[in-house]
């Protein structure tokens, strides 16, 4: 009877998970830091522009609303990228299992 090497499959899946999710985490941390720095700077600049009357109250309110919308966009982008990584992981697991299955039956 054909033998499927379950231990090898587990090892390959663990390797795939470690690589994909580590990349996702590292990217999320670096993007998160960059986003926070950008937002902080925007808030400082806005306060200065408002204080020096370089912008009107309406322009200030508009920019503030934009910052809130951009925060939502950042969250949505992260969710989409995480979903994409999960899909890549599922595809990767399928590949590993198929390769092992075909190797076992020598197709």
């Amino acid at each position, binding site marked *: 009877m054909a033998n499927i090497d379950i231990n090898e499959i587990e090892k390959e899946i663990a390797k795939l998970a470690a690589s994909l999710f580590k990349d996702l985490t590292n990217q999320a941390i670096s993007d998160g830091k960059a986003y926070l720095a950008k937002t902080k700077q925007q808030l400082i600049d806005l306060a200065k522009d408002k204080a020096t009357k370089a912008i009107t109250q309406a322009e200030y309110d508009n920019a503030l609303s934009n910052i809130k919308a*951009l925060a*939502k966009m950042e969250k949505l982008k992260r969710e*989409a990228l995480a979903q994409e990584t999960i899909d890549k992981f599922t595809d990767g*697991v*399928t590949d590993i299992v*198929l390769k092992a299955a*075909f190797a076992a039956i020598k197709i």
Partner: protein
Amino acid sequence: MREQVRPPNAGTARCYTISLCCFFLTTACSTIANYDQVAYDKVTGAKAEVLTLVDKATGSYSSHIKDVEAVTLTLNKAYEYDRGRPLNQKTTQLWEQLFVKKADDPNSGIYPRFIDLWKKEDVVSAKAVETEKTQLTQAFDDLIATESGKKR
């Protein structure tokens, strides 16, 4: 009478294995849309047009109505294209923050809010234009990064 048990043979094993493969192939479906070059082109094109338009906001709104209409149409086409793609809810929600003023989300609609501001004030200050360009760039870059990250 003794029950006869047939030993598993290579044919049975092969059958099980192929069934298992079929199971994995059918269940391993995507949960998010794949990368789409047309969508990418539309969003990058819209970004360039929007930023060019915002630069004009230091001038009178009334003399740029046609420009606003043209850019709004470009944005609408890009948004509708993405909205019509299956498994593309996250991208559609991103577009909504940029392009749609939702009743239940007062901060959504970065672009239409700016157009309303321009229309109301007729001329926007240079500083506000600079800020708007930075924020719109950030919004479009989120959309572009999301599309680029999709499976090819």
